[in-house]
């Protein structure tokens, strides 16, 4: 089932979106997006609900026509092509397994529609079910499977047709937390083994960080930043991106503009502790301490500002006065921002799909 | 083909059927029956409303329907409540038993009342045996017979609508109320009843509309002495052949049902909030 990519085709991007816009009843859900997805790459579209990521995916699949712009699949204009002629493999958030068909028939469906000879269908279905570890459940109906198993069937069904691109719409969001983490690796393994190009839509930054080769962050219908997850995480361009990736401390430094500091870099100093060299020390009042297993997350007020830090000091209680050490050398600049917090302050528009 | 055209095409056969087999005949018959000698239905209606007999029949129809609705509610709601609170796997069977009569012909279901209520019927024999009457007690062709027959006909509908309303209410709500110090009775009155009420009232309106328009039961159990609007309409239409009068009665019946429908629509909106 491992298909090595052919070098001749590597140059053509699998998916290209050119100035794609989608409006719903006057409100703009996707605002002139340009996106290139290269062969074999795992792309994650990440953003809060209503940011346009699902709308974008549905336009790539052909379920929703763009208001304007061009969609190229394998270099061909596919903007008005109906979904059944796009050769896409989609995994839906609800899985959308056909309830009247067995696991085997579900997986075979796409091949039957393509007129693949039945002998070949049998071997390919067996291969794919093997790949997701469900060969023993081939005769079951979807409702007789657990959520995780249904998820695998949905994945197998999409992979079976050897699509030019695998579209994953929040595929893990209906699983419980533990299973979700397991299935991430499973998803990655299947994508690597098949060599398929994949686009994942998710609102879970951990999922995107773990899976993506290219992480695309959307906000209100626009791409705000994209790149390899490590790069984006190390250098978020704006406060929105930083907050979305879990950063909590935001400062406006004179001469340097808006920056963020990771909580684990902020030192909580005991009464007689000597502050490390460099950086700045501020007086703060602890407002909350949360036990996290190996350490404690401390929330402290500095004037009218709130800072977050990590400590192993077990004696710290809410109300205590402490000194915090801010290593400004480790502060990450947010160059694309004017310093105004956007997350949570602006009502986010909801797009209807 | 545009999406709008596709939707239109899917609806077209049904719309055509309804236009020809429903809207057209219904509209013409109610408001301008050409086949009637006197096509002025509204004039006829005015005359009939001045006539004491039609008013008496209309009043009886509403009275019988209202009493039927009340009794259906008293019998049906407790059954629905017990079914909704029975163990899950038994609910299906109990509900099926309660609503099965809905699948039977009204003729079948009304026939037994002829046996029970007639001059040589069960109740008459029972009264005679007890020495309370000396044979031949006739309960048929009375309002009592009408109400008995209609109640038996419509209680399953009341059970069905009450059940669907009650089955959406989590048992834990009652348990929560009990935990907060309410007695079972109070928990029921203060928590279950208010939540179930809109759905139950929608069911009551269904029963009322059904009882107003029921035909077979009044024909067999009410006879000519206790006519309802439905049997009166049939009499004008098929026996007296006074089609203008039949249209007028049809108009009254339709108005009653539409009013019940509007009230029910209101109630279900209240319930949805």
């Amino acid at each position, binding site marked *: 089932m491992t298909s090595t990519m052919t070098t001749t085709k590597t140059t053509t991007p699998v998916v290209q979106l050119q100035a794609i816009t989608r409006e719903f009843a006057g409100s703009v859900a996707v605002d002139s997006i340009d996106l290139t997805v290269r062969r074999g790459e795992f792309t994650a579209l990440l953003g809060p609900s209503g940011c346009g990521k699902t709308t974008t995916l549905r336009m790539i*699949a052909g*379920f929703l026509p763009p208001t304007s712009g061009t969609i190229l699949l394998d270099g061909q204009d596919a903007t008005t092509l*109906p979904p*059944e*002629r*796009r050769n896409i493999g*989609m995994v839906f958030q*609800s899985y*959308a*397994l056909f*309830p009247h*068909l067995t696991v085997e028939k579900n997986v075979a*469906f796409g091949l039957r529609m*393509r007129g693949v000879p039945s002998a070949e269908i049998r071997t390919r279905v067996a291969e794919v079910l093997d790949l997701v570890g469900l060969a023993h459940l081939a005769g079951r109906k979807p409702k007789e499977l657990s959520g995780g198993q249904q998820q695998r069937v949905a994945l197998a069904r999409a992979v079976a047709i050897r699509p030019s691109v695998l579209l994953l719409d929040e595929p893990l969001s209906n699983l419980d937390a533990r299973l979700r983490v397991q299935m991430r690796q499973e998803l990655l393994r299947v994508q690597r083994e098949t060599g398929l190009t994949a686009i994942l839509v998710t609102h879970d930054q951990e999922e995107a960080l773990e899976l993506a080769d290219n992480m695309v962050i959307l906000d209100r219908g626009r791409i705000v930043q994209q790149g390899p997850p490590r790069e984006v995480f190390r250098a978020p361009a704006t406060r929105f991106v930083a907050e979305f990736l879990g950063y909590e401390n935001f400062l406006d430094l004179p001469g340097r503009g808006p920056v963020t500091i990771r909580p684990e870099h902020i030192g909580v100093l005991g009464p007689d502790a000597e502050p490390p060299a460099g950086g700045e020390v501020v007086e703060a009042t602890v407002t909350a301490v949360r036990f996290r297993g190996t350490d404690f997350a401390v929330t402290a007020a500095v004037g009218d500002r709130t800072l977050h830090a990590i400590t192993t000091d077990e004696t710290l209680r809410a109300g205590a006065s402490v000194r915090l050490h801010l290593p400004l050398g480790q502060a990450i600049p947010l160059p694309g921002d004017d310093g105004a917090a956007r997350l949570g302050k602006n009502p986010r528009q909801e797009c209807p799909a | 083909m545009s999406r*709008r055209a*596709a*939707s239109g095409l*899917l*609806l077209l056969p*049904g719309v055509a*059927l*309804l236009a*020809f*087999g*429903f809207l057209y*005949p219904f509209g013409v*018959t*109610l408001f301008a*029956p*050409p086949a009637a000698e006197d096509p002025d239905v509204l004039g006829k209606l005015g005359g009939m409303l001045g006539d004491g007999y039609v008013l008496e029949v209309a009043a009886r129809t509403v009275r019988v329907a209202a009493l039927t609705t009340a009794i259906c509610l008293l*019998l*049906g709601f407790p*059954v629905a*409540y*017990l079914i909704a609170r029975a163990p899950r796997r038994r609910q299906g069977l109990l509900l*099926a038993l309660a609503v099965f009569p*809905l*699948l039977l*012909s*009204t*003729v*079948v*279901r009304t*026939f*037994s009342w002829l*046996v029970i209520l007639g001059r040589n019927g*069960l109740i008459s024999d029972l009264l005679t045996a007890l020495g309370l009457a000396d044979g031949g007690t006739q309960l048929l062709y009375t309002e009592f017979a009408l109400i008995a027959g209609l109640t*038996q006909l419509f*209680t399953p509908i009341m059970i069905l609508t009450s059940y669907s309303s009650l089955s959406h209410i989590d048992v834990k709500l009652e348990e929560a109320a009990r935990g907060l110090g309410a007695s*079972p009775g109070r928990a029921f009155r203060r928590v279950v009843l208010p939540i179930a009420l809109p759905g139950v009232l929608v069911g009551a309106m269904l029963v009322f509309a059904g009882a107003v328009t029921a*035909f077979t039961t009044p024909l*067999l159990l009410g006879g000519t002495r206790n006519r309802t609007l*439905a049997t009166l309409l*049939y009499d004008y*239409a098929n026996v007296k052949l006074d*089609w203008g009068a039949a249209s007028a009665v*049809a108009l009254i*019946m*339709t108005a009653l*049902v539409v009013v019940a429908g509007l009230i029910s629509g209101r109630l279900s909106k209240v319930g949805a909030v």
Partner: protein
Amino acid sequence: MRGRPLLTAVAALALVFLLGPILLVVAIAFSSGDTVEFPPPGLSGKWFTKALAYQPFQDALTTSALVAAGATLLALLVGIPAALAIQRRRFRGRKAAEALFLSPAIVPELVLGFALFQQLMVTLRITALGALLIGHTVLLLPYAVRVTGASLAMADPALEEAGRGLGAGPLRTFFHITLPVMTPGIVSAAVLSFLTSFNNVPLSLLLNGPGVTTLPVQMLNYVEFSFDPVVAAVSTLLLAATVVVALVTERLVGFNKVFGK
């Protein structure tokens, strides 16, 4: 039910009241007496023999079965596309279309029968059988649209998209996915429609013609002139047939689905 003696008593009374009279009819049907009496003096099957041999009932049964089957088929053929449009498509006037398709259910059946009798049979001179078929189809259409629509409303709309994505065009998606998903709803609607049509009296009574009388109407005619256990025997046979239909429905889709439960 512990602690609720009053409630339980009322419920028991209600069940006796609902089912008792039906069982009474069965008992009378097996009577060996010459008149309707309870308790019957003895048991016999003679009323069944008489009922089955009675020609007008045989003819009426044929008419009823034909009309019920025809109207059910027509109502489904017309109602399923309408349910698809109402449940799966967004267009202006969707709510109005839904209200239109459900409206025959709120109109008194007798009034509809009278209207169809006047306009279709008297004015347009359509035959009784034709008028019966049209009238019953109109009567069943709300059930067909509502019950098949409910099965669509419960299904994940992404199913059809999944079909398209896997390479099935709109038609193949309909036949391979939408229709099978709707099947329980279609079966429920068919059972409910057939029985509703078969049992109907008001429409059938007004839309009769020479040789075109349905079974319930024929039973009604019979009761008006002679009061003997023949009708009880027919009722018992209908009851038995209905029980069979209910059991088969239970096996196929779950009995209570017929009522949308």
